[in-house]
C-alpha cells in the first residue's frame, strides 16, 4: 500500500472538510454503561413516535373497537345493571378495562413488527450496533408502551366524551400512563418471546389471536373478580392485565385499589418479560 499509515489528524481533516464529511472521520465516544440503557430506550421510543406522526391510520382504526365496546356494551350494561360495580355506573367501571384492553392489543401484536424487522434486515442492523440484546428488548418494550400510551389517550378522550367521570388530576394521570406503559412492556415482551420461539409472522398472528380474548375475559376488565367462578378467579390473579386494570380503575375513578401491589406486579412482570424476550431474541438473528 502506498498510503502513509496513520496520517496525523491535522492532515486528514482537510480533505474531510473539503468533502464536507469532517465529522464522519471521528467515531463517537462510547456512552458510559449506566447511561446506555436509557439512551437506547429513548432512541427506540423516538422512532415509534416518528412513525405515528407520519401515519396515524392505525391510531384511528384501532380506536374503533374500544369506542364500540364503550358505546354498545357499556351503555347497554349500564341500563341492565347486571354487574355489581360497587356503585359506579357500568360504563365508568369498564372504561379502564377497555383502556387496558386496547393497550394490550397493540402490545400483543408487537412481535409481528419484530419478525417483520428480522425479515427486512432492520433487526440485524440494530443487533450490530453497540446495543446489548436486553437494551434492545427494553427499548422495544417501551416503544410498544409509548404506542399504547398514545392509543390510551384516544380511548380516554372517547370515554370522557361518553360521559365517564374520569379524574383529571395530573399526578393520577401520570400513574395511569405508567400503568399503561408497564402493562404494554410486559405484553410486548410476551409477544417478542413468542416471536423468538415461532419465528414466523403467520404463527405469531394465530397465537396472538388465540390469547388476546382469553387474557381479556380472564381479567377484571369487564366484571369484578368477585363474580367469577373460583377457577377463573385463580386465572385472573395470575393475569397481569387484572393488576393493570385494578390500578387504572383506582387511579381514574378513585375506586378502592391495591396500587402498591398492582405496580409491583406490573414492574415484576415487565422485568420478567424483558429477561425472557432478551434470551429468545438471539433465535431471530440466526
Amino acid at each position, binding site marked *: 500500500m502506498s*498510503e502513509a499509515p496513520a496520517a496525523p489528524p491535522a492532515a*486528514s481533516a482537510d480533505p474531510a472538510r473539503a468533502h464536507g*464529511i469532517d465529522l464522519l472521520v471521528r467515531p*463517537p465516544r462510547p456512552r458510559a454503561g449506566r447511561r446506555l440503557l436509557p439512551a*437506547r430506550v429513548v432512541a427506540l421510543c423516538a422512532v415509534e413516535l416518528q412513525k405515528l406522526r407520519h401515519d396515524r391510520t392505525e391510531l384511528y382504526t384501532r380506536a374503533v373497537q374500544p369506542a364500540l365496546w364503550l358505546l354498545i356494551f357499556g351503555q347497554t350494561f349500564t341500563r341492565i345493571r347486571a354487574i355489581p360495580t360497587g356503585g359506579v355506573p357500568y360504563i365508568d367501571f369498564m372504561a379502564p378495562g377497555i383502556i387496558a384492553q386496547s393497550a394490550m392489543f397493540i402490545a400483543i401484536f408487537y412481535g409481528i413488527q419484530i419478525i417483520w424487522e428480522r*425479515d427486512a434486515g432492520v433487526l440485524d442492523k*440494530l443487533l450490530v*450496533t453497540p446495543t446489548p440484546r436486553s437494551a434492545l428488548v427494553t427499548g422495544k418494550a417501551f416503544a410498544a408502551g409509548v404506542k399504547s400510551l398514545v392509543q390510551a389517550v384516544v380511548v380516554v378522550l372517547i370515554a370522557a366524551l361518553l360521559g365517564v367521570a374520569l379524574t383529571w388530576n395530573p399526578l393520577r394521570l401520570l400513574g395511569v400512563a405508567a400503568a399503561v406503559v408497564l402493562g404494554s412492556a410486559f405484553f410486548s415482551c410476551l409477544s417478542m418471546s413468542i416471536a423468538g420461539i415461532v419465528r414466523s409472522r403467520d404463527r405469531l398472528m394465530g397465537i396472538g389471536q388465540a390469547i388476546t380474548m382469553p387474557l381479556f375475559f380472564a381479567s377484571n376488565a369487564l366484571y369484578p373478580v368477585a363474580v367469577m367462578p373460583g377457577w377463573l378467579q385463580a386465572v385472573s390473579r395470575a393475569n397481569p392485565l387484572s393488576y393493570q386494570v385494578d390500578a387504572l380503575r383506582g387511579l381514574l375513578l378513585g375506586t378502592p385499589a391495591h396500587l402498591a401491589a398492582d405496580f409491583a406486579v406490573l414492574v415484576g412482570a415487565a422485568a420478567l418479560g424483558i429477561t425472557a424476550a432478551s434470551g429468545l431474541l438471539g433465535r431471530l438473528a440466526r
Partner: protein
Amino acid sequence: MTRHIGAAPPDDAVTCTRLTYAFGGTKAVDGLDLSVRQGEVFGLLGPNGAGKTTAIRCITTLLPVPSGTVRVFGHDAARDRMAVRRLLGYVPQQLSADAALTGRENVTLFARVFDVPRRERAARVAQALAAVGLADAAERLANTYSGGMVRRLELAQALVSAPRLLILDEPTIGLDPIARTGVWEHINTVRAVTGMTVLVTTHYMDEADQYCDRVGLMHRGRIRALGTPAELRRGLGERRRAHGAPATDPLPTLEDVFRDVAGSGLDDSSGDFRDVRSTRRTARRVG
C-alpha cells in the same frame, strides 16, 4: 491506543482463523482462513451458498463463533462483541432501511444508537446524508425512495458512526448499472477521506475487478484463491499458456478465474446446498 498490544497482528482489520459454522449437517463455512488488511477494499466472491453471508454474520457478531477465531482490529468477535460492534458499519443484503421513516430519521436512529452526542447529532446526520447524495431527499419517507436511493441511505446509516470497517453484503444486488456505480462512487469518496476498511461480498465479478484491492474466491466454505484481481487473472493466463494456450489469447476475466477454481475436480460449479451436503456425507462415510 492499543493497536500494538494483543496477539493479533496489528495491521489486519479482520482475521478469521479456521472459522467453521454449520447449519445442521451442512458446513456453510468450513475452516475459513481470512485476513483483511487495514484500509483495503476486500471482496469476498462466490456463488450462492458458498458461505459468504455466514462468514460475514460471524464477523459482525450476529452469529456465534462455534469453532475457530474471528478478530476485528484485534478484538475477539466471540467475547468482545460490543467493542467489535463499535468499529463496524454494516449493510445487510436486504433493503433494510425503515420505510415508515424519513431518510433523516433513519440515519438519526443510528447516530443515537452509536452514542453520537446530541450537540453534533444533526450535523453528523446531515453530513452522512450529503455524503451519499441524499441531502435533498432527507425529509421524504424511505418508501418513496428508489432501490439505489435506499442502498445509499443504508450506506449513510452505516457511515454516521465513522466505522473503521464497513461491511457490505451484496450491496448492489438487484440495482441497475447506474445505481450500482453510484453506490460504489459514494463508498470510494468516503473511503478516500476516512481510510476505512471495506469488506464486501458480491457475485458480480466485474464489480470486484473494478473496485476491490484484493479478492478472495470462496467456494464450499473456504477461500480457494486470493490476490489482487490482476494477479489472479495473470496467474490463470500463465497457467493456461503453460498448458499450451496461445499467447494471443485475451487475459482471462475474474469469472474465468472463478470457474477455474470452483470447477477444478468437480462435475460442475453450481455449488448448491444439496450438492455440498451429499459431498460431505460421502466424505464422512469414506472417513
